[in-house]
């Protein structure tokens, strides 16, 4: 248990399309997390920020930006950028600092303000940039989600009704989350009536991008005990491993997969190998997990993640869904925060928001969304270029 750290506080600025400076969201989240932890800002000796690449220079040095906004007090700072896994890498940096004995209490924070519409690549003729190539050839983000979704339909018999049921489930639970951006309960008819974007996915199957901010106050177990919070939820594992060659599933923004033609090389799926390190590090298995927060960039992708986390055998996630097992009150509730379906993605904050939800759940403070008796939770997310993360939190 020597590699565990305590989560003393969690905070979030509500997700939305507020149009404010990202620093404002991060500060609000940090202040809420500090108050939740009962830790004075002056006691924080390490500030670990998730970078945003959409908000200019302050976003590139987010750790320092947030430390300055909260008031310089001499803490050390770090900034991590790893697309959707930025928050987890920032959390990992804080954990390393704490476990090395160089810091008792750290603030981990990420926030973003997102532009309107597609995130378009830089201009010019740039065939060396895979992002330029795929947009030139007409391959957008929903293309990839749709390829995975269609493959589920053809291989496992998943249906459009299954995908819609994920949206219905997440919107119902997310409607009870005051921090979520979309709080309307949608029906299967609403999903079916929304515009087709990339067959078989409709507008309501695909997540939006949002503004938001999330923060955690983490500490050594000794410090937690010293301030009377020895029973705070703990970070038991953080996996940020890269894929292993050959990556056999075509991933954004690539136009082709790795080739597995060389001797001794086999095609693998990154999503399915990512959680293995987390389970190993925490010394637990999928059967010990009480709830999961997974990256539902599309409704169908939630089903892939359930299998990648080994919460269901390959091809059987839809059966779990139909059975109500992944709903609140079911055997293994998934995305009881409402997921990306209700939040929309705020890249550097999203992995931290997942951990915030697990923290509240494991403390029994999730109100209408509470998973009874939750003791172990796992997160999963994935961004570009082999960046992904899986975090396990337990009591």
């Amino acid at each position, binding site marked *: 248990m020597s590699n565990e750290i305590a989560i003393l506080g969690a905070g979030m600025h509500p997700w939305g399309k507020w149009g404010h400076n990202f620093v404002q969201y991060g500060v609000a989240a940090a202040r809420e997390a500090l108050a939740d932890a009962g830790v004075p800002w002056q006691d924080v000796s390490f500030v670990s920020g998730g970078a945003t690449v959409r908000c200019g220079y302050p976003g590139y040095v987010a750790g320092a930006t947030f430390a300055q906004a909260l008031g310089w007090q001499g803490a050390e700072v770090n900034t991590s950028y790893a697309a959707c896994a930025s928050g987890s890498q920032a959390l990992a940096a804080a954990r390393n600092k704490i476990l090395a004995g160089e810091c008792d209490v750290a603030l981990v924070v990420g926030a973003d303000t997102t532009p309107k519409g597609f995130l378009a690549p830089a201009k010019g003729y740039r065939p060396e940039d895979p992002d330029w190539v795929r947009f030139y050839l007409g391959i957008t983000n929903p*293309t990839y989600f749709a390829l995975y979704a269609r493959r589920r339909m053809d291989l496992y018999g998943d249906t459009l009704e299954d995908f819609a049921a994920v949206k219905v489930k997440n919107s119902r639970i997310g409607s009870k989350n005051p921090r979520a951006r979309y709080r309307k309960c949608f029906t299967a008819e609403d999903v079916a009536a929304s515009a087709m974007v990339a067959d078989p996915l409709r507008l309501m199957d695909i997540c939006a991008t949002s503004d938001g901010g999330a923060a955690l106050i983490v500490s050594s177990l000794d410090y937690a005990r010293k301030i009377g919070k020895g029973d705070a939820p703990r970070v038991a594992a953080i996996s940020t491993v890269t894929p292993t060659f050959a990556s056999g599933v*075509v991933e954004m923004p690539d136009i082709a997969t790795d080739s597995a033609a060389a001797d001794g090389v086999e095609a693998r799926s990154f999503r399915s190998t990512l959680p293995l390190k987390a389970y190993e590090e925490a010394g637990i298995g999928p059967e010990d997990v009480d709830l999961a927060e997974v990256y539902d960039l599309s409704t169908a992708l939630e089903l892939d993640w359930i299998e990648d986390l080994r919460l269901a055998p390959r091809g059987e996630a839809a059966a779990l869904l139909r059975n109500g097992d992944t709903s609140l009150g079911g055997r293994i509730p998934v995305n009881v925060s409402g997921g990306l379906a209700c939040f929309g993605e705020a890249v550097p904050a999203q992995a931290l928001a997942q951990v915030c939800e697990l923290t509240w759940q494991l403390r029994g403070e999730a109100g209408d969304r509470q998973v009874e008796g939750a003791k172990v939770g796992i997160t999963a997310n994935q961004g570009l270029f082999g960046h992904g993360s899986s975090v396990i939190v337990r009591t």
Partner: protein
Amino acid sequence: MSEKPLAPAIEGWHTMTAKPHLIGTQCAACGTYFFPKQSQYCKNPGCDSTDFREVELSRTGQVWSYTNACYQPPEPFVAPDPFEPYTIAAVQLEKEEMVVLGQVVKGVDVDDLEVGMTMELVLEPLHETDDDIKVSWKWQPVAS
């Protein structure tokens, strides 16, 4: 379509022949294929070769998955006015053990495709410029 000359949308990524091939590279040491071409370093973690040969990739493969684009992508995509939805396929090349994305030829809808179906590589216009017609590789079901 006008009388303008045909030109590859991306220079050197495929042959301009009647039965076209994608042009990739192969590591001379370990045999790993690369598309797009890679000739500086091998991405196989067990190989540090810097020796690559240019190769023509298999021009047929099996559908790994498929979808379509119902909305106009942002630049640098050049869209016809009005925008016309198109189909997209991810095709598994057997010998190369890799999956390559591409548009599907005009007139083929998602309802015409299924996972495992055999596809072949063809060239079709992507868009037109003042000087020429830019063509790209597209996937086409093999008539059975």
